[in-house]
C-alpha cells in the first residue's frame, strides 16, 4: 500500500505524530477546508488507525487521497481538496 514519497510537494503539512484517532482525522478536516480547492494537504500520522480512517474519511467526504508515503520514517497521507 505504502509508496515512497513521490511527485509534487504538498501545499501544507499538518503534523499529527503521536496523536490518536480521531485527532488526526479532525486535524485533517480542519486544515483542508482552510485551503483552496485543488490544494494538497499532507497529514503526518503514526497512529495505525489513521491508515484506515484517513482513507475512509476521504471516501466519506468526497476528497481525494492522492498518495500515502513514508516521510522521515513516518506515515504521510496526501489529500487533495476536491470541493
Amino acid at each position, binding site marked *: 500500500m505504502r509508496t515512497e514519497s513521490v511527485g509534487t510537494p504538498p501545499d501544507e503539512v499538518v503534523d499529527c505524530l503521536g496523536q490518536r484517532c480521531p485527532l488526526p482525522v479532525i486535524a485533517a*478536516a480542519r486544515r483542508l477546508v482552510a485551503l483552496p480547492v485543488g490544494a494538497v494537504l499532507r497529514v503526518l500520522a503514526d497512529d495505525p*488507525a489513521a491508515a*484506515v480512517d484517513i482513507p475512509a474519511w476521504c471516501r466519506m467526504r468526497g476528497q481525494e487521497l492522492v498518495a500515502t508515503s513514508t516521510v522521515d520514517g513516518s506515515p504521510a497521507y496526501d489529500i487533495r481538496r476536491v470541493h
Partner: protein
Amino acid sequence: MLAALEDGWADPAKLYSQARRARQLLDAARAAAAEVLRVRPDELSFTPSGTAAAHAAVLGGLAGRRRAGSTLVHSAIEHSAVLHAAQRHVTAGGTTTSVPVDRAGRLDLDAWSAAVAAPGVALAALISASHEVGTLQPVAEAARACDAAGVPLYVDAAQSVGRVPVPEGWSVLSASAHKWGGPPGVGILVVRKGTRWESPYPADDREAGRVPGVPNLPAIVAAVAALRAATAEAEAEAARLAPLVERIRTVVPATVPDVEVVGDPVDRLPHLVTFSCLYVDGEALLHALDRRGFAVSSGSSCTSSTLRPSHVLEAMGVLSHGNIRISLHRDSTEAEVERFLAELPGIVAALRAEAGVVGL
C-alpha cells in the same frame, strides 16, 4: 441438569456407577448436539471454549495434512482465536494466505478460489459470519472452491450455531456455547469422518482423542439444553430481532450526522449491528452509552489493549474510530432499542460539541 450436577463430578471414563451415569449424560448430550448440527455423534467433541475449539480446528487440521502442504488459507476477518493459531503455525515455519473482503465485509470469492487452488495448501479457514459486523460469509461457495482444490474447509461457526443455519460442505467446524445463550467454558469441535485431522496436543483419550482433560459435564449438559432451546426458537427470534436491527440501521444514519453503518445490509446475522461515528472517540462513546445503561462493544483501537484498530474494520476499509457494535439477545426489547435510538443523537452531539468538531 440436576442429574448432571449430582453425578457430574464423576469421571465419565471410570467404571463406578456414578461414573457410568456421567458417561450416559455425556453421551446423551453429545447425541443431542450432533442432532442439532446434523452430524454423527462420534464426529463431535466438547472443548473448554470456542477459542480452544478454534485452536484445535486450525492446528489439528494443519497437522493432519502436513504431507499435503504447510499453507493455511484464511479470510482477513477471522476471529482472533483463529488468527492466533495461524500465528503459531507461522512461528513453527508454516505459511498463511489472508484473503480480502469487500467494503461490506464479504469474502472475495475469486481471491479465495485462487488461494485454495495454489500448491501446498493444507487447510482453509472461514468464519461463518463476521463477529464484528454481522456479514454472512459465502460458506457454500467457498466450500465448493475448497472441494474442487481438494482442500478441507474449517468453518468457525460461533456466530451462527443456534441462530442461523450453517451451510454444508465443511470438514471441520467449531462453535461456542455462550454465543448461543449457554454457559461460558464450553465449545464444540466437529471433525467430519474422513477428514485428515491430528490432535495438536499431547496424547489423551478424552473426547475421541481430540480434546485433552475431563470434560465439564454440568456445563456441557446446560450448554446442549440451551442449544436445543436456541435452535428451536432461532427462526422466531430472528424474525423478532432482524426488524430491530434494520430499524437501527436506518434510523441511526437519519438522526445522527456523519455515521457510517457497516456490514452487508441484507446477508447478515439477525442480531448484530455495527456503525462508526465520524470524529468521535470510541471509548468516550462507549462510556457515555454505558452511563445510560447501554452495554455495547467497539472495534475502535482506543478501546483495545493492542491500540490497533479492529482488523475486521481495517480489512473492510471502513472508519474505525467512534465504532459501536450492538448485539441483541433474548432479553433485548423493542422499547430498549427505541430508547437507544432516542438517546444516541444527543450523546453523539454532546461528544462532538465537547471535541469542537461540529460542522467539520
